[in-house]
């Protein structure tokens, strides 16, 4: 193995598998520190891009908030992500859904793909140090 890859494997903050796909609607449970308190904020939106950059792999989640499009990029290995839930899957034919940026309302909707309840339960990604049950 390349020495750089070996080092990156050693310093990985959390272990996390990407169990969601492009076009999925996900709920990202993100830890926020306010003063001394920590709470969890949920960010829900459509995964429009997954960027493979080794250990710095990221995914982009787009949602419409008060009629304004918001996109947030999360590192997959961020220790601040408590868990990622998949709530809806959709039929997509592209790896990057940037065309959604130009669309509004009904035309920005993706066709839903059926997925079993069982898969839905299995889908939440767990971190090695923080179990998904919260």
């Amino acid at each position, binding site marked *: 193995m390349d*020495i*750089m890859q*070996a*080092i990156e494997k050693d310093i990985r*903050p959390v272990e996390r598998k990407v169990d969601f796909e492009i076009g999925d609607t996900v709920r990202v449970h993100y830890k926020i520190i306010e003063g001394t308190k920590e709470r969890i904020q949920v960010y829900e939106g459509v995964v429009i891009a997954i960027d493979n950059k080794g250990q710095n792999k990221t995914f982009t989640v787009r949602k419409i908030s008060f009629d304004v499009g918001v996109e947030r990029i999360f590192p997959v290995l*961020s220790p*601040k992500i408590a868990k990622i839930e998949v709530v809806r899957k959709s039929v997509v034919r592209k790896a990057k859904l940037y065309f959604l940026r130009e669309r509004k309302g009904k035309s920005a909707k993706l066709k839903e793909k059926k997925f079993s309840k069982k898969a839905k339960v299995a889908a939440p990604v767990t971190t090695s140090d923080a179990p998904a049950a919260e």
Partner: protein
Amino acid sequence: MKKALYGRKIGMTQFIKEDGTAVPVTACELGPCVIVQKKTVDKDGYSAFKLGFVDQKESRLTKPIAADLKKKNIAPKRFFAEVENFDNALEVGNEINCTIFSENEIVDVTGISKGHGFSGVIKRHGFGGGRITHGSHFHRAPGSIGAHTYPAEVWKGKKMPGRFGNKNVTVKNLQVVKILADKNIVLISGAVPGRKNSIIKVTVK
């Protein structure tokens, strides 16, 4: 008594701290270095360790060096360099590795910067240059280099085009972020001079 060690630059990556903040880090392979010679004030006028590092075929050494290493029972080494004597308990033949550093320690890193060849003033000194379009004929030239009859010469040290990089550079006050002792790897925050695999010296402040 500044602790110091030689090694090579591996490359850069991101280190994510426990609170989730990402730090840019350079991975450096430091040591193990073997003490080849102990220089003393009595004999040499100053006190230092001569270190050897990176294994080498014996046939690639000159005969005097090979014979010296053989006498001291040290495997052939590729590079030799000196650091200050920071621990008198160490003897010739002892190995020093990256465990002499500790996390959060402040260090200076010395290395040979990347060579850029003969470069113009924009790359070498950060000059602004001129407009590319709108009828401009002044693009990347240095412009005026001095006045006229007085002083009738170009001042010494004027920033001009020339060889850029490939010089000894020290970056001060970098922080050791993490030590992976089993791989001899030290992660140092920020950038370190030189290309990948170039020789660097890390000194504790």
